[in-house]
């Protein structure tokens, strides 16, 4: 979970407000293309390898500048302002902490465990900071975004929520999603104006049904396969005299196939869920109380694009990754929009930047938002 989820700048619904006239909805577009990004991408990877990873911070900046800059609303792109040094410092701090933590864990286990707990304790604070960083290094029309959420909200949205969702086998996942979208949406600012979001739990559960069904189906199939495999092995044990290497191979294959199936079912369910929840949450979000956001991804198409992107990327040994990334960005942007109330020119002539939002006193603490 990063800012990418919450900015009208990227990333991945099917609920629009009926069929609104497209006239007053301004959709985002994506003006980048695969071949142009290919160059940026391969140079990023090459320089990252040559510099033993140090360039990866600058690579991130160039990648984000490309994707933000080509995300266009009303003829103007977004802009990403972080610089490589900021990101490198953040990465080095995370890296140094991990090294220290591991060393302590081996020499003075108690201190190591203490450090680990300390890290857990700081996670909500680090998440909030990371979101603030991502917001503040993003601008549109010379005005930066800002994020004012605190550690308490992050704790609820990114620790309590996921834990609850996991403990209830996903039954409470919509509640967790509601918390995280409310945390991000209600704390996001642009200029001096606020975003507000309140996705209805009923609608979130409405979009949760399909992925839940996919999961249950996947589990049933996997369960059947495991049963079949066990039966096979059982029958092998009975006739241990015969050479049964072939059959054993079959059992192993079946197990492998079963785990791949479960894995992809999880992935597909997550994608369907993600797209559906995004639609619900974005359509329940407004800027400055009047301008409503819109997301109308087709859940099936979104999932298909993600899955086929992965397959194409793997089959081409990564070479089609730039094409895949651009394809996804284009689809998501074209199904994201804002419905402005009143005169757009008027609106943007009033929005100004609060000076405080810019500065080098914050840095990117990525790595701490892993695994959420």
């Amino acid at each position, binding site marked *: 979970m990063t800012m990418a989820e919450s900015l009208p700048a990227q990333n991945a619904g099917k609920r629009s407000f009926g069929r609104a006239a497209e006239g007053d909805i301004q959709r985002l577009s994506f003006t980048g293309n695969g071949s142009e990004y290919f160059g*940026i991408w391969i140079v990023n990877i090459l320089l990252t390898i040559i510099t033993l990873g140090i360039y990866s911070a600058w690579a991130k900046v160039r990648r984000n500048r490309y994707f933000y800059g080509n995300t266009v609303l009303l003829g103007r792109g977004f802009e990403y302002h972080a610089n490589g040094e900021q990101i490198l410092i953040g990465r080095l701090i995370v890296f140094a902490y991990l090294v220290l933590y591991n060393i302590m864990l081996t020499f003075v286990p108690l201190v190591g465990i203490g450090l680990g707990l300390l890290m857990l304790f700081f996670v909500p604070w680090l998440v909030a900071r990371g979101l603030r960083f991502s917001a503040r290094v993003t601008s549109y029309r010379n005005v930066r975004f800002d994020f004012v959420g605190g550690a308490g909200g992050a704790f609820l949205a990114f620790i309590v929520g996921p834990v609850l969702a996991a403990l209830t086998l996903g039954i409470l996942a919509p509640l967790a999603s509601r918390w995280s979208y409310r945390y991000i949406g209600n704390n996001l600012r642009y200029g001096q104006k606020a975003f507000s979001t309140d996705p209805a739990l009923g609608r979130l559960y409405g979009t949760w049904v399909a992925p839940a069904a996919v999961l249950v189906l996947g589990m049933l199939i996997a369960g059947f396969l495991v049963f079949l495999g066990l039966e096979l092995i059982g029958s092998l044990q009975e006739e241990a005299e015969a050479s049964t290497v072939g059959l054993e191979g079959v059992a192993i294959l079946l197990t492998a196939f079963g785990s791949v199936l479960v894995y992809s079912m999880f992935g597909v369910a997550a994608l369907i869920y993600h797209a559906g929840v995004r639609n619900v949450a974005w359509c329940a979000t407004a800027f400055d109380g009047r301008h409503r956001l819109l997301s109308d991804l087709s859940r099936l198409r979104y999932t298909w694009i993600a899955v086929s992107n992965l397959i194409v990327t793997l089959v081409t040994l990564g070479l089609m990754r730039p094409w895949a990334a651009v394809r996804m960005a284009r689809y998501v942007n074209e199904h994201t929009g804002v419905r402005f109330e009143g005169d757009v020119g008027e609106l943007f002539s009033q929005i100004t930047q609060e000076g405080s939002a810019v500065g080098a006193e914050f840095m990117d603490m990525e790595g701490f938002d892993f695994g959420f």
Partner: protein
Amino acid sequence: MAFDGTTIASGEWHAPGSSRSLPASLVEQAGRLVVHGESGGELAGGILHSIEISPRVGRIPRRVTFPDGSLFETEDNDAVDRFLAGKGRAREGAVHRLERFHPRLIAFVAAAILLGALIYRSALPLLVEVAIAVTPPVVPNIMSASALETMDRTLLDKSKLDEARRNRIVEGFRRIASQSARGEAGYTLHFRGGGALGPNAFALPDGTLILTDELVELAGEDTEMILGVLAHEIGHVEHNHSLRQIYRAAGVTALIMLVAGDIGSGVEEVLVQGGGLLALSYSRSAEAEADRHSVELMMKAGFDPTAIARFFELLETKLDDRGGASIFSTHPSTPERRKVILDWIGAFDERK
């Protein structure tokens, strides 16, 4: 004022902190960079080195930020590049020039693949060796103690072997352990009931060896066979196989993390999973190393080095049906292993 500069590019200008934009043009005038509005008045200006021009990325708009915080944005990247080149600042666009779509990129792809493979095949093993060299002995001790405790609580039971049987094995074990590099003191042998693990033997990185009753029963009266297996496990310890595997996994994860942003979360996930499969192939070569070690130790201790090959044969005939639960699972196929072992014994005899 007289308009006597050269126009560089046209675009939009924002007052500091304002989202309102005015059509404007960027002009070089008397050694300064100036933004002119449509009416020709100066909106902002400054000397070149006080002005920040964003590095070029693809075709996204170029940002020219003035000392007063105002911003000029233009789509005309080429014009800005030409202007900078004229000022001897062409070097700044080097990365962008590398990124342009050009046949040269094919060479970059090849170089990335080559260097990546080089890091994976040589730099990574080297780093693993360095890490093992600097690992203090307390690390494997802690790892092993907690692993043994965990297994005792979950999988293993108390051993039910009779004393005589046990003593025979321990005595032979001492003989082979004293031939090992760590010496007899470096190893402790524990007997356990295998429970779900069935006939099995495994080594923990600090030299703790665990042998299950089921394996002893399987071997019947052939104590040498058991010793062959134990010598194989000693081989795992001597070669630091488990630490190596951990460090390798950490290194592979680090490599994947570094390019994660460029390859997307789906591919990252697949790579991490694939790393697990690669670890499996690594474990096969580790098995071969341990087999060889077994042969050497057994010969040095004056036992029959083919014992371990006999053990594999036994596994093949008796244990086909326990594929998942025997030590058979991660191991190379048996006939091939036997052949290799016999070859080693031959080679060994010649050297003497």
